[in-house]
């Protein structure tokens, strides 16, 4: 039995207004001016304002919101709609550039949610277009895109080499007349990451869409989001990622066989630990209804008590990272340590220690030199 989440912060976080509204949108209509200022501020910092619009509209609450709130949220609504439109158009352009390429091109993250019209695409701010292709096709796909006018954004030799040897993606490509970044991945985690799963399993299970593209199957799509947040991400301001997982669990979870398939998949790809974290924190922050049997199964991959306590502390500090809760000011120092602790953690998982030291010293040296100039 794992201990339930119990820290001083966890209680504060439970009462965070933004979280409460994300869980229960009708609470929006009861907010006073101070409440709105807090919610709007946090939603802005966490890139969730457009999500509030989506929740308000889906729940028929929009017209009941104060005029000023409608005005402020409309900015976010229009901006996010524009970004989504840009991503859709970029997909169209990539599809055209890859017209002669016949193997699988898999949309991942925002583009996949948008084309599949999933709930988690509602009000989601996507900036880049991410696609996944088999590693053997990487050069071919890159050449097609370069021929179509895309330009590599990384010119530095060390960075180019870093990307090509160790990263899970090509250096970002951008078409100069549209300026949307296209990231071509060949796997979902850094090659050197010790949790890097067998990507061929995911590519083989992907599902065709209409037209040129595929998406990952439901289970893998959720796994990818989890891996992105709990293995690779810095976890800073990542409430929106957790929300994305929550949405998928709710949407996919209505199919009776989903949870069993999902847990089988997580174990086959050796991603039990990050899945445990996702389920634990979704249930804690967003009250995601996860079947008991699934939770019991996930706990087999829980870390030891000490590690879990530490992870809880770090996550609670960073998940809703702003301002005072219950009138108590939070310590800037612990917030700083949490964010940076998680940053170090993500790097620790990303590469073996000696390589990490070499990489970070090089980065540090370069930043230091840049300052001197």
């Amino acid at each position, binding site marked *: 039995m794992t201990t339930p989440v119990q820290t001083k912060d966890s209680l504060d976080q439970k009462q965070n207004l933004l979280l409460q509204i994300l869980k229960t949108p009708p609470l929006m209509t009861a907010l006073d001016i101070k409440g709105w200022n807090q919610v709007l501020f946090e939603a802005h*910092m966490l890139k969730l304002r457009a999500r509030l619009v989506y929740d308000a509209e889906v729940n028929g609450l929009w017209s009941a919101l*104060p005029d*000023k709130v409608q005005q*402020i949220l409309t900015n976010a609504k*229009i*901006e996010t709609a524009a970004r989504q439109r840009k991503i859709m158009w970029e997909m169209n352009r990539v599809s055209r550039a890859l017209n002669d390429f016949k193997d699988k091109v898999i949309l991942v993250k925002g583009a996949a949610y948008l084309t599949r019209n999933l709930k988690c695409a509602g009000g989601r701010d996507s900036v880049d277009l991410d696609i996944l292709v088999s590693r053997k096709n990487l050069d071919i796909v890159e050449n097609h895109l370069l021929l179509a006018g895309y330009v590599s954004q990384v010119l530095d030799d060390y960075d180019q080499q870093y990307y090509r040897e160790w990263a899970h993606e090509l250096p970002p490509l951008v078409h100069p007349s549209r300026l949307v970044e296209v990231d071509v991945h060949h796997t979902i985690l850094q090659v050197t990451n010790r949790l890097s799963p067998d990507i061929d399993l995911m590519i083989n299970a992907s599902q065709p869409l209409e037209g040129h593209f595929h998406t990952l199957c439901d289970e893998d799509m959720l796994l990818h989001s989890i891996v992105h947040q709990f293995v690779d991400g810095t976890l800073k301001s990542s409430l929106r990622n957790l929300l994305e997982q929550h949405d998928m669990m709710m949407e996919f979870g209505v199919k009776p066989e989903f949870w069993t398939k999902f847990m089988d998949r997580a174990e086959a790809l050796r991603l039990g630990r990050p899945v445990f974290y996702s389920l634990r924190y979704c249930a804690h922050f967003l009250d995601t209804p996860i079947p008991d049997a699934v939770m019991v199964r996930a706990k087999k991959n829980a870390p030891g008590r000490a590690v879990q306590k530490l992870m809880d502390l770090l996550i609670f500090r960073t998940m809703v990272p702003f301002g005072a809760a219950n009138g108590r000011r939070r310590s800037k120092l612990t917030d700083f340590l949490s964010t940076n602790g998680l940053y170090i953690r993500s790097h620790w998982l990303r590469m073996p220690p000696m390589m990490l030291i070499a990489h970070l010293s090089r980065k540090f040296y370069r930043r230091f030199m840049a300052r001197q100039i």
Partner: protein
Amino acid sequence: MTMDIFKAEHHLAGPGLLMGVGPIMTRIAIKFPSIRDDFLHMYQGYPFFEGPEITDYHLTIFAKNLYRRYLRPQVAINTLMNDDFVPLPESMGLLSVEMGMNWQVAFGCKTHILFHAGVVEKNGVGVIIPAISGSGKSTLSAGLSYDGWRFFSDEFGMLKAETGELYPYPRPVSLKNESIPVMKEWVGSDAPFSREYEGTPKGTICYLRPPIACLEEMHKPVRPRAVIHPVYNPNAKSDIKPLTETMAFFRLVRSSANYGDIGAPAFRALAKIAKECVSCEITYSSLEEGIRLVNKFIDENVA
């Protein structure tokens, strides 16, 4: 709405002063006393709020550390909106406040179609004066506003796509270099001007507060009736060149900062302006000439 200046300074120094200009409510905190003085002088007569009000933007003008606060003072700007400003010396302080507020509106505002343009109004006739920096639109809009026109903005034309109306956003006018003495002479008093900030990236900058009557009517929109593209050229002969509907449309698109984000409603609104408004380009060699041409064009073409 009118607030005691000591109280306003207290808010500015502390959690922030709430100021409403047109449709935008900003909370401004300034950690430098000298910049607070400049700010309060410039924004005399603007509506400050005791609060709480639902706030569009938060702007903080601060020093990164004690060294940058006291020993070699340097001003940093936090707009909470992906800004990356080069810190300015404390002596240019008010510039950072203006830059910060401009940034927030330029990148944050999508409820209104934004034109990089001056806007003025007289007798219910709204005039959009779009132009790139250096073409004299700030000077021309300010000149008109001290000559019987109501000032909306010298920098941000704000049009609501649904109603087709222009909304005032009457922030201080930013004057550069040679236009500073010209405007001082035109206004005839030093009172509404800021100090002159010398040695900025754009040369000498001086701010001018719009006439108080414009501030009192900052929530009163107007329908656009004319679009006038100014071209300042000290050696040129005065000229008014009418624009076709098509040219008028494309030049409006080019002057709009968020046309692409707003999409279809912006397309329809701009097409409507191009169709229903009279549009021209004026070439002028002095402020007086510019104002004469604007008045002449409006008198002859807008009933």
